[in-house]
């Protein structure tokens, strides 16, 4: 069994990564129209990269989109 995957998180992040867009945290507008549960929304809106990982976001996508959140 590999790790948990959230399609909702990855679909949102994939779209932004393809556009080479980065975020510190997501806005209401970023999330509009996406299927996400309350935990996922909270993690995206606060830019909690560790929580996003545990909720099943792909780490490459977390890295690409939330680049300003990483120290290295």
């Amino acid at each position: 069994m590999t790790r948990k995957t959230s399609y909702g998180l990855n679909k949102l992040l994939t779209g932004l990564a393809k556009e080479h867009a980065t975020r510190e945290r997501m806005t209401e507008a970023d999330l509009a129209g996406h299927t996400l549960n309350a935990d996922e929304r909270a993690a995206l809106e606060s830019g909690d990269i560790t929580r996003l990982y545990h909720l099943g976001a792909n780490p490459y996508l977390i890295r690409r989109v939330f680049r300003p959140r990483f120290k290295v």
Partner: protein
Amino acid sequence: MAEIVAAALMSHAPLITGKPEVQKPEQRDRFYAGYREIRRRLVAARPDLIMMFVNDHLQNFAYSNMPAFCVGLVDAYDAPSPGGARLMRLPARKVPGAPDWGMALLEEGLSVGFDFAYTYEVESWDELSVPLHFLLPDADIPVATLYINCGAPPLPTPRRCHAVGAFVGSFIQSRPTTERIAVLATGGLSHWVGTPDNGRINEEWDHWVLDHVTRADVEPLARLTWEEIERDGGNGGQEIRNWVAALATVPGWKGETLAYAPVAEWITGCATVWMHR
């Protein structure tokens, strides 16, 4: 008969070119020198085509349709695109593909039971852009690609990647041409990207991999599980699949490590390896 005239394995990471200002410049210089030595030997081998085992980073293949193995039928690769060029600090450019050669590989694969996906368009990220910046500055040799899913689990097993590589090797040797082929793999070694351990490098595991490559002892690499790689090599270490596939095209060839540098700023255990017949 077509022939494999060169083989090499090397790391890729966007910050290899994107962040050349590092704390230990001797590491950067050693690793760049490794790429340049591969370039020198590659030119001397006079390949007509470069076959590359690489992986996407969710740039091309999405969770709506994720191929385990995908043959590039691309006329010209974005390597990099204007968007990717900024982070990698490389000029945007196109590198010529080899769509007819890719189609022959695809059709032969399908006929013997390797049900590859295929794509006519690739916007490469660091998997092609960074190594080819050093190896193919003039973009004067066509590139064929086989994309292996190393980044969106569940992933194909290293064992299956070995079988795919062995098939590609036999495909090359069965070609009724005199073409000279170079086989490259990019990716690895250990790195933790975007995970809670982001930035970790496991030098011990890197040396374990290089030691096996040096002795042409591929079996322990092919036997690795996703869990073992995730634990010891990180999510980025899963790219070792590309190496296993390339190694399977040249059974018995032994690796010479040209450079190894665990560069903290590039968050990757960086290696360049030339394979000897």
